[in-house]
Structures are given as C-alpha cells and as structure tokens.
C-alpha cells in the first residue's frame, strides 16, 4: 500500500533568508496517527503548510497517496483536511453555511446528512444557525475541525488542535481523533503536550531548528521519556553498593544514590528498595525526583 505522505529532500528558505526546513525526509503511513513535536519555531507549521499547499517549498517533493502535491495538486489536496494553528473564521457567516462552503470548495456535492453528522460529533449542532462570532474560542476551534472534515478527507492535519481547549474537551477531542483513525483517516498533529502524543499517537517525530531529528514508534520513545530517576542523598558516604541492592538500576555517586525507575514495575520495586535501604542501614537525608521531560529529550537530541 502506498504511503499517505512521502516527503523527500524538502528545503524551505523564507523570503527574508530564514532557513526554516533543512533536507526533510519523512514518510507518514496510511492510517496512523503521527505526532510532530518540537519547540516553538522548529518548523512544524511550515512543514504542514508546505504539504497542504499554503507555503511554497524551495526544493524537494511531497506526494499524497502518490499524487505529487504540485503537479497533481487537485487530486492531492482533495484528500487533505487542514486545521491550521491560528483560528480564522468568517465572523458573520452562519456555522452551517461555512461548512457547506468548505465542502463546495473541495468539489463535493452538498450533503445535509453528512454535515449534520459532523456537527453533532463535534457538539456544534445546536449552534448551526448562529453566526460564528457568537461561538466561544473552543467552539471555534471545533468548528475549524468540522470544516476540515466536511469534505471527507483521507488525511487530517491538526496543527495544535488542543491549544486553549479545556481539559474535558481535550479528552473528548482525543476520542474523536481515535474514532477517525478507526474510520481509516490518517492523522498528523502537532502539539506541545507530551501527554497528548503519549495518549493517541502511533509514531512521533521530533523536529528542531528545521531538521527532523528523530522519528520513532511511540513505545520506543516513551521508554526514553519514562526515564524518571530518584536521587537519594545519603547521610553517610558509601563506596560500594550493598549486594542486596545490586539488582536495582542504581548508580552511586559519593553520598548520592541515583535510582532509575522502571516504569512498568515502579509500584512493586519502590517499597522493596526502601526496605532494602533499612536492611543495609542506609540513612537517607533527602529525596529528589527528576522526571525526564520532552524538554530533556530535546536538549539531549539537540546537543548531539
């Protein structure tokens, strides 16, 4: 089966000379949820905008299910729904009309039934005859999603879909996204919430300063992320780890014991470890927990 998106050697230099993307190569598989992570200004939106035809690339090719996004832009674009990062709506237009408008732009005949089903899914059906300016910020964002889905795309781009959305709603949006995936829609999203990527993505790509620095299965990347460590400061220095503690993932640094948590067995191991400390008369004066955040991974990867 062909890839949903294939990006080869894409470079982007903005007109002011800023190099936004460097030699991007990336494949997005059909039917997966791909999360694109990276610090502010990394180039996430630039990449999405290039794929969707909003921004021109300088070199390279992008194909959407084997349709080149410039040479066969009509076929390519008709497969894509885009929710851009910034909310942009026609304030005075009615909710339902704006959805019909988008569907028409994508050359699809009007379908009241389908539009109704989308509006209901995104809890906007009661608002269908209201002007867009009367919606709340979160509703407007959902409306943008409804518009992107209005023409039944096979690939959905969500550029920070949950920015400014409350916790409950964010969770319901994840559910919606997962449902879409079950319908066979390929989803590419960007986010700054690692929890979000953790919950819903199949694969994660990290981009920094215009370069893709990592593309991995979520499970693999989470192992790295899961590297939480507990630092026990000891009352007395020890030179060597007592034998009974050797099976733990612990390293000794003078008066400090650094324990790397095995996320899977955390609940069993931790009480045992503390008991063993008592057995070996190790006196702990302070405990510090360090979480490996996405930030740490960035820093680690960017340093390389």
């Amino acid at each position, binding site marked *: 089966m062909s890839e949903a998106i294939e990006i080869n050697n894409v470079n982007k230099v*903005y*007109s002011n000379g800023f190099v936004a993307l460097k030699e991007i190569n990336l494949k997005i598989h059909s039917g997966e949820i791909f999360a694109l992570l990276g610090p502010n200004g990394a180039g996430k939106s630039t990449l999405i*905008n290039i794929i*969707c*035809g*909003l*921004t*021109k690339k300088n070199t390279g090719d992008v194909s959407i299910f084997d349709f080149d996004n410039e040479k066969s*832009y*009509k*076929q*390519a*674009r*008709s497969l*894509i729904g*885009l929710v*851009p990062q*910034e909310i*942009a*709506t*026609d*304030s*005075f*237009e009615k909710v339902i*009309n704006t959805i*019909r*408008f*988008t569907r*028409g*732009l*994508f*050359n*699809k*005949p009007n379908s009241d039934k389908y539009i109704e089903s989308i509006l209901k899914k995104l809890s906007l059906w009661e608002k269908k005859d209201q002007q867009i300016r009367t919606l709340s910020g979160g509703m407007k964002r959902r409306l943008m999603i409804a*518009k992107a889905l209005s023409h039944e795309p096979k690939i959905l781009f969500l550029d920070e879909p949950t920015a400014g959305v409350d916790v409950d709603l964010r969770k319901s949006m994840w559910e919606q996204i997962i449902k879409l995936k079950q319908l066979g829609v390929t989803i590419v999203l960007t986010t700054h919430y690692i929890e979000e990527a953790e919950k819903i993505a199949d694969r994660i790509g990290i981009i920094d300063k215009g370069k893709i620095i990592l593309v991995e299965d979520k499970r693999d990347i989470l192992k790295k992320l899961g590297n939480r460590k507990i630092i026990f400061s000891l009352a007395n220095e020890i030179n060597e780890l007592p034998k009974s503690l050797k099976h733990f993932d612990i390293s000794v640094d003078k008066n400090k014991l650094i324990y790397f948590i095995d996320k899977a067995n955390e609940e069993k191991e931790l009480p045992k470890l503390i008991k063993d400390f008592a057995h070996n008369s190790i006196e702990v004066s302070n405990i510090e927990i360090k979480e490996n955040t996405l930030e740490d991974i960035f820093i680690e990867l960017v340093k390389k």
Partner: protein
Amino acid sequence: MINFRGLMSIYKFEMSRTFRTITQSIASPVISTMLYFIVFGTAIGSRIEAIDGLDYGSFIVPGLIMLTILGQSVSNASFGIYFPKFTGTIYEVLSAPISPLEITCGYVAAAASKSIMVGTIILITSSFFIELKILHPFYMLLFLIIISVTFSLLGFIIGIWADGFEKLQLIPLLIITPLTFLGGSFYSIKMLPPFWQEISMFNPIVYLVSAFRWSFYENSDVSILSCVLAITSFLLVCVVVVILIFRYGYKIKN
C-alpha cells in the same frame, strides 16, 4: 477536472456577503448616484445648454452609471480577496483543490454581478428623472458586463497586491476616481480646449464612458472602434496580470 462547485461556492459566499450588507453594498451607491443626479442633472443641469442635442440630465446618465460601476467593481473585488487575507480565512481557498483561475473567476464574477446589479438599479432610478432612451440595448448590456468584469479583475489585482487597508484605497482614490471624473462622465471631451482634449485621449476611461454613452444615444466623443479596442485591450491586460500573479505566487503564498 474543473472544480465548478468550488467556483460556485466562492461566488455564493461573496453574493451572500453582499446581501448581508445590503444597505452598504447596494443602497449606498444608489443614494450617492441619486444625489449626483439631483445636483448635476436636475438643479445645475437645467441651466446648462444641451450637449449634442441632449439635455444635460440625459447626457450624464451613462457617465454616472460608469462612475459607479468602476468604483464598485474595484472596491468589491479588492475587498473580496483582501478580507480573507486579512482575517486568515484565505488558508481554506489556498489549500482547496481549486485552481487560481477558478478562484479568480469566483471572486470576479461575484464582484461584477454586484456591479451590474447596482448599474441596473441606477438605470431604473434615473428613468424616474428623465425620459430614458437606449438605442443599442444589446451593446449597452455587453459594455456593462465587460467593463464590470474588467474593473473587477483590476480590483482583484489590487486586493492581492495590498497588504494594508490604506493600499486598498490608494489606487481607487489616486487613480480611478480622478480619471473617471476627468473621463467625460459629466461633460463632453469636445467641450475642453484642444490641448486638454489631446491629453484626455490618454485617459482610458474616456473610451469606456464614450462607448457606453454611444450605446444609449449613438453619440460619442471618440470613434466607437477605438473604444471597443481600448476596452478589449484593458481586459486583456488585466487577465495577463492576474495570470502572472498566480504564476509567481505573488504575496499570497510565503
């Protein structure tokens, strides 16, 4: 494959914007034309002698309609494309499977339709003030349509080029309004001293007004052939500029 539904979506969207703001988009040009008509046609006109055998009120009707549709076409079309750029909603059109040509047709057809509507309303209104006589209704309609389309194209170009509201107003204010006023809407070019008559020949709007007035009364400041030539070449220039703009993605895409 032509994305006809996309084109119609843009057209309908723009037309619904027109009807939503009906006072601003239809009533205001009609009112301002009626004021012109009352002041120049009825009040002052009664003291002006006939031009080419026409009383002054009848003489200015075609010019007034031109004045309005030129202004309306440019402002409708430029606003129509500038506004989505300004609010950011343009992303939708740019990411849709719709060609630049189809986009242009949608916006330009809507702007031109509105102009033609306004022009027709003014024509009907004026018939309450004067006895209307249209010798060549077919050509009248044809000129009305072509000129509306041409200036809507011009407006579209301005709307794409503009990156602020001032620029949107700049060309209409500095070029189109003066040229229209000096283009023989309110007087015959023949009434000018010879030097200014010659200068006027470089004003493209003279030809439009002349042609349009010809379709009403068969009298014209310049030959009808040169008018048709001028109108056609103006249309072609606008079409070529639009094509070039899209080829080089000027100012719409980063």
